């Protein structure tokens, strides 16, 4: 944050040029050292394990350090069905993650509810949290996941580092931390859709 603060207040030619360089360097670092938090609830979680394990090996993309604490992660991978019972927990985990943070909806359940169009399943996590990459598949193959990861890396490469100021991100945090509203999500804020 300090870095962004520093450059955000600079103006003029040198600062702008330097800004670009710094921007690229920071993004290069961010995109190649993602720290995933696997919010794995269902079958997709098993396929995520497949992507992490040695045959496919996620570490080739610099994202192998799976963290189970939202405080230590910057990539939330929602792999599996999110039910209404689980929704407040997912929201809280997302809120607890530090900026900058990104979200991959792994599998159709997370992306849209999948074929569980029923009384118990949230019809897409973008009803609750913003999503950067939607990844279809039931479950997606590990290769498809890597495709999504690379898409996210490209997205990060094109970002302005200032974008991750908290106040500039969509504010979904409820006023009180117990009673949360389900926000309407701006369709323009939707992320990249892979393969469909």
């Amino acid at each position: 944050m300090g870095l962004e603060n520093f450059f955000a207040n600079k103006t003029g030619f040198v600062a702008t040029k330097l800004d670009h360089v710094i921007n690229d360097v920071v993004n290069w670092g961010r995109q190649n050292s993602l720290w995933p938090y696997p919010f794995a609830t269902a079958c997709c979680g098993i396929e995520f394990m497949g992507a992490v394990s040695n045959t496919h090996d996620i570490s080739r993309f610099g994202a192998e350090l799976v963290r189970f604490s939202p405080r230590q992660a910057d990539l939330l991978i929602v792999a599996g069905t999110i039910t209404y019972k689980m929704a407040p927990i997912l929201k809280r985990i997302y809120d607890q993650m530090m900026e900058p943070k990104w979200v991959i909806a792994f599998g159709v359940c997370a992306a849209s509810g999948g074929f569980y169009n029923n009384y118990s399943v949230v019809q897409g996590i973008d009803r609750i949290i913003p999503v950067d990459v939607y990844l279809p598949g039931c479950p997606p193959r590990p290769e498809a996941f890597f495709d999504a990861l690379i898409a996210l890396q490209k997205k990060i490469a094109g970002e302005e580092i200032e974008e991750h100021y908290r106040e500039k991100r969509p504010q979904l945090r409820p006023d009180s931390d117990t009673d949360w509203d389900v926000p309407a999500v701006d369709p323009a804020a939707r992320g990249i859709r892979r393969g469909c």
Partner: protein
Amino acid sequence: MVSTIDTVESLRAQFPDAKFRVEPTADMATVVVERGNLVPAMQFLRDEPSLGFGFLVDLSAVDGLKLEDDWPDRFQVVYHLLNMDSGNALRVKVAISESDCTLPSLVGLWRSADWMEREVFDLFGISFEGHPNLKRIMTHHEFVGHALRKDYNIQDGQWLGETESLMDEIGEYGENPADGGFSELIPINIGPAHPATHGTLRFFGKLDGETLVKVAPEIGYLHRGFEKHCETGSWTMVIPYTDRLNYCSAMLNNVGWCHTVEKMIGVEVPERTQYIRVIISELSRIIDHCVCIGAMLVDLGALTNFWYLFNLRERVYQIMEELCGARLTSTYVRIGGVAYDLNPEFIGQVREILKEIPKGVGDVLGLIKKNRIFLDRTIGVGVISKEDAVNYSWTGPCLRATGVDYDVRKAKPYYQYADLDWDVPTRTNGDVHDRALIRFDEIVQSMRIIEQALDRIPGGPVMSDDKRVQLPEKEDVYGSIEGLMNHFVLVYDGIKVPAGEAYHSIEAANGELGFYVVSDGSGRPYRVRCRPPCFTLLSAFSEIVEGSMIADAVPTLGSLNIIAGELDR
């Protein structure tokens, strides 16, 4: 063997004033009892030595709202009992009306009834008098209505505002001197977003130092409405949903479902298909055990084993993928057969894998068998006795680790299991160590089964030629009016299952996976109840871990192999 008549005769002799009605069902004896006699009759069935129905297999309910004929009352609560020694099964039903839907609770007889009754309460709104903790278990606590009632619209989702605190279950515990005079207990919450709970369980406990003195589990975080969904599509459309019950061994669930429906229709699958089903079932069992052991060892801090075992899984995935096009959620089995014949390389590839499994499993065993950390952390930890395991309706490897040799493949043999030469491994201590190692024993037995099945598998068709389930050949569709009609009806209406009810089960990786199905004779299931093996396993968890160290609760949970898709459905 005790026949139905004998069972009912002894009931009538014991309770001369009560009415017992026998219903004609093909799969097992069915007795309808009156509400007032339920508990004494059940107690008699359980304790009378000549009957010996000591095992409560399943407890569920059916909403008869849309069934016109002879349903005087709206709901029926259905109990499935089993005599583990003789293999006799019995279905007991009680009819209750909507205006007065209460029943006496059976928790005093079987502790597994605790969660099962909570589920019926949650999804049907039937209350059980005398139940110690009757509250919702699958849907969240702010949910209004009862999802499995026929008048609940499947798409009516309800947001949850605030996660339940669970304070009502154990909040006060420890403040009363009768609880054991603790000076100060620390409440602790684990999960659902916690690696040790594998994503979808939650435990709220009270700690005295590092000892867990009281635990309240909360499940239902992955309740995806499987049973409600089954009622919306054709019989075949249920198959993809079954994949996602126990997603570590999807093929086994496919087999379980199709086996049940085939029994109801009365079609016999060709011999080749039976062998194919045996082979894919055992392969699925092996990879399921691999995940269970691997994940449990990760919980103990041993990551290497996980990679060794996952390598095997990847190898099996590869051949599954060549067989049916999907790695995990296969949807390979069909009612009346399987979707495609084996690819020509399949048998050779399975033989290859059979050579690799002993290596992978041997590597893991080499790492843990004499490992002090593993032994110290598992021997004598999470112990459950034989009697308690039966009382909690445990099945599968966890039950066999306590010394009961109940295995559906032997007790009610299906397909070729009776002809193949294999054993049911058992162990005696019922602790985490035995629950882990018995899975290694089972992998060995599964390999034996596969080897023999590969040698014996005959040629021939893979789909039954029964017109009720098999689409006719294209020449017939274009060449004859019967073929055309047959095709049209099967595609348009789906497979028809005669009206009636049935319960059939197979041995899945975690234990007995049963389906209780009610059909009204149309192209859609009227009611599908899945008897998940995990559910009863986890219901005993709090009793097992109370009094043990918190660090021991984690491997105990791992050794039960809780798969949320199957637990919460």
